[in-house]
């Protein structure tokens, strides 16, 4: 069984299912027609379970849970929400649940959620009831860490749980930077040394950066990769200084993008999808010629992988949750565009074909085994 690609869009949820060879893809859905679906994530500890972050244009944000591989869904009894405030405190309300991450494999019912404005939430009952994580949300530095925001507020995303230690967490904030906790989220420290922030008056600040997507390799958890607003980076802990591996990308293409995706077993292999970050930031594929770039040596070198992709006049934008890999020995790599197309490679990015089109604006593409 090849599994399912869950496609979260601005107008609902779709599923793409392939045969065992991943040749024929069948589109199902929509479910939640008219809902904005920011993220859909399978629970690797209980593969029948999926969580989904949703809202609509009118209604407040919430989380739905499925225990039957997405056939039916039930809303959380208590969705992520900030705590009540005291007089004089800023009353922040969750505008969107933007990110979902399953907890550590030893904590079977734990999930994390990230929101806009930047908030961190935890459920210890499988996503039914959510509590704000005070260690971050009420951290005295939080207003400074996430001060700049984006036009849609700051986004807390890329919540990473160290597979070796459930107390060791990373988060990323756009705009705010990367932060680390070693005590299950009670306290946090910025982790941005080496990252550029050339949009700030002082580019050497300890926080205020714009990580677009951060990933941790499951087989080598000390290794982090980051696609940032200002380049592609790698960090091998316990080092604290990110290395700009995007410097090895072709100068004409640059190293700006939203997603970064890792090979399921090889920590040296990763894929990115560069976008145009010049002048007024069109955020489209560079020159109208979309290409995935892959590295097999931890970012020391990158190779263009565009066979099957349009050769010209294709102005893709691919958002940070909208690219993923599956877990095959020769991994499938997938991405969805804001123009509603899903592209698939079943040979590690060597060749591509469009497996769905005419969908609404795609926010999230995730693989479920």
């Amino acid at each position, binding site marked *: 069984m090849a599994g399912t690609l869950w496609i979260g869009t601005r107008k609902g949820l779709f599923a793409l299912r392939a045969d065992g060879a991943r040749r024929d893809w069948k589109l199902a859905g929509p479910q939640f027609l008219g809902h904005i679906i920011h993220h859909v994530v399978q629970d690797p500890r209980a593969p029948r379970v999926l969580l989904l972050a949703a809202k609509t244009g009118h*209604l407040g944000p919430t989380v739905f849970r499925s225990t039957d591989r997405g056939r039916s869904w039930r809303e959380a009894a208590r969705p992520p929400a900030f705590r009540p405030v005291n007089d004089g405190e800023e009353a922040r309300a969750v505008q969107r649940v933007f990110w979902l991450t399953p907890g550590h494999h030893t904590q079977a019912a734990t999930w994390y959620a990230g929101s806009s404005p930047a908030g961190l939430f935890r459920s210890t009952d499988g996503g039914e009831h959510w509590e704000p994580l005070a260690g971050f949300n009420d951290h005295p530095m939080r207003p400074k860490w996430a001060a700049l925001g984006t036009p849609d507020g700051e986004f807390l995303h890329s919540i990473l749980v160290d597979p070796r230690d459930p107390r060791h967490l990373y988060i990323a904030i756009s705009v705010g930077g990367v932060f680390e906790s070693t005590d299950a989220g009670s306290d946090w420290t910025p982790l941005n040394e080496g990252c550029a922030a050339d949009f700030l008056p002082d580019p050497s600040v300890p926080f205020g950066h714009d990580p677009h997507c951060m990933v941790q390799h499951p087989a080598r958890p000390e290794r982090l990769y980051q696609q940032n607003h200002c380049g592609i980076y790698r960090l091998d802990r316990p080092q604290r200084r990110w290395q700009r591996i995007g410097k090895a990308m072709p100068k004409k293409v640059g190293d700006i993008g939203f997603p970064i995706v890792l090979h399921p077993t090889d920590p040296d292999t990763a894929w990115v999808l560069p976008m145009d970050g010049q002048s007024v930031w069109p955020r489209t594929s560079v020159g109208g010629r979309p290409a995935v770039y892959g590295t097999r040596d931890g970012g020391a070198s990158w190779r263009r992988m565009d066979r099957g992709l349009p050769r010209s006049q294709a102005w893709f934008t691919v958002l940070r949750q909208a690219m993923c890999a599956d877990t095959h020995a020769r991994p499938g790599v997938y991405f969805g565009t804001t123009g509603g197309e899903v592209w698939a490679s079943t040979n590690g990015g060597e060749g591509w074909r469009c497996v769905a089109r005419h969908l609404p604006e795609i926010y999230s593409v995730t693989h479920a085994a």
Partner: protein
Amino acid sequence: MSCTVRIASPLRSYTAGAATLAARGSTLAEVLANLEQRCPGIRFRMIDEHERIRPHMRLFVNTSEARELSAVVRDGDTVHVICALSGG
């Protein structure tokens, strides 16, 4: 106090499709609490965690827009839950 609540279509997944419901309460807050008891989850989609009406929601008591949940609801009133036109 007993009133009628008219439910906008985006919220009818919580009311088993019903467009109107009878509810009890002498303020909007009490009416919504009564509604929440029978339709779990509906209130948070309209009201945020700081008791504010969400930006794209509008609540009316009869023909008067209610900006606060303390708005008085009288016996026989109709509460309208309206989704403001927005987006594309």
